[in-house]
């Protein structure tokens, strides 16, 4: 197993379970280096003082915060560390809520929590938490500090383990005020037809159906370039015209989708 990103204690009432944190997401992105076009050498970033026009070593850099009146307040690493919340090694469960009540807009990064160490007591306490949360669609809410930021987190059971997802705070979600929500309520006939179309397109959620085509194409671009082939940029697409008759567009779509999907089923 890869190295843990964090280790600490999950605390549930007076039950404390030592745990380690691992990412639940794998990075498959292709990563690039910045190179100097002329000689193909790697580019490195150096930090310069704007005033002195001289390179600055890492130890001489502080954190500047610009206040509303334009004045700059500078904190050192030590001062910033001093503000780090108390008990940085504990995730304290304060409440349990229904998973269905948490809107996905709040979810940020998913992790797994695994028991730390081999001690039988730790494993039993961990297992108890899994068992008690497994069959209720509930999440435990808590807070924890990763690096320097405090996160609100939801802990629930996935794949028989405790999974932890960091969440955005409520005020980090933008209000929908001002967003153009379109015209008047559609006539019943139109809505019925649109509902039929949505239903005709419906299928079970299966994440395996959707592969990362971008990643594949990028790998192909790299391969072609390596072989000295030319790479054509994508063609400009023409924007689809808004339908002048929504009802007609829906009816034609429905006929088409039903034709296709029944064709698939008959194969």
């Amino acid at each position, binding site marked *: 197993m890869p190295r843990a990103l964090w280790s600490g204690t999950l605390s*549930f*009432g007076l039950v*404390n379970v030592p745990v380690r944190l691992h990412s639940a*997401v794998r990075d498959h992105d292709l990563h690039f*280096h*910045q*190179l*100097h076009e002329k000689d193909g050498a790697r*580019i*490195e*970033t150096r930090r*310069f003082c704007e*005033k002195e026009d001289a390179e600055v070593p890492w130890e001489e*850099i502080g*954190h*500047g915060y610009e206040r509303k009146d334009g004045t700059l307040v500078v*904190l050192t690493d030590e001062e910033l560390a*001093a*503000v780090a919340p*108390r008990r940085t090694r504990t995730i304290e469960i*304060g*409440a*349990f*809520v229904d998973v269905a009540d948490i809107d*996905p*807009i709040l979810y940020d990064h998913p992790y*797994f929590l695994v028991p730390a160490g081999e001690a*039988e007591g*730790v*494993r039993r*306490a*961990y297992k108890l938490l899994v*068992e*008690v*949360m497994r069959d*209720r669609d509930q999440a435990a809410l808590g807070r924890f500090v990763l690096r320097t930021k405090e996160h609100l987190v*939801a802990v629930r059971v996935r794949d028989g*383990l405790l*999974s932890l997802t960091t969440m*955005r705070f409520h*005020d*980090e*979600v*933008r209000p929908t005020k001002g967003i153009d*929500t379109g015209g008047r309520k*559609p006539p019943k006939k139109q809505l019925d037809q649109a509902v039929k*179309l*949505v239903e005709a397109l419906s299928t*079970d959620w299966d994440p*395996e159906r*959707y592969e990362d*085509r*971008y990643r594949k194409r*990028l790998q192909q*671009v790299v391969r072609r370039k390596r072989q000295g082939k030319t*790479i*054509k*940029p*994508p063609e400009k697409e023409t924007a689809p015209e808004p339908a002048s008759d929504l009802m007609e567009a829906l009816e034609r*779509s429905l006929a088409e989708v039903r034709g296709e999907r029944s064709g698939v089923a008959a194969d």
Partner: protein
Amino acid sequence: MAPRSLWNGTVMLGLMAVPVKVHTATESKTVRFHEVHLKDGSRIQHRRFCTQEDVEVPYEEVVKGYELSSGEHVILEKDELKAAAGDRAHVIEIEDCVCADDIDPVFFDKTYHLGAGDEGGQAYRLLHDALEKTQRAAIGRFTFHDREYVVAIRALDGVLALHTLRFADEIVDGRKLDVSLPRKKPGRKELQLAQRLVETLHGPFKPERHRDEYRKAVLKAIEAKAKGKEIEAPDEEEPEAPDDLLAALEASL
């Protein structure tokens, strides 16, 4: 005032074109700092240097290189990178509709709001109402900043929300992690006590009740520093793992 849009294009539900605008739906409120030279309080600049020539390099002379296992780089021009984006830069075609609740939270990445595009009000309303009524999420591909994403579009608080989704092979399978748990189920008494504790702590989710205390503490420290006060570190205390699970549960209740 309408918020600025990041992307303008069309959602295609079958042959029905729905012109839309994409707006940001979330913003990080983490306190941001600039890098500053401690000695004179002036701003730090990042400058690019060629490691071979040891001279500063203007941005126009920087290219992206993909490193092969041999250590050599395959260089790609900015235009060539665009080729991987595909050719549907401004169209999101709905491929499937699924039950919105069936998508595990682990798949959700970033969220945007969709607003109605020009001349698209009626079609937008229709798509919104149909997805709301059926509680479905529409799955399609969204090309943003030269990269293609799989997205779920659903009705949320009267508007359409667009979530970029993680791909199945990016999700770690917990069953393949090396974790050995005791085979024995917890004792009945332990389980009952734990269940009672969960029930006692169970309540409705009120996101507005959870505030970012760290953000507040950092802003407070900044104000203290501005007034010339000293910033002190709080003491830490660490809890201990329980010796007696049952006793700990009973004491919690």
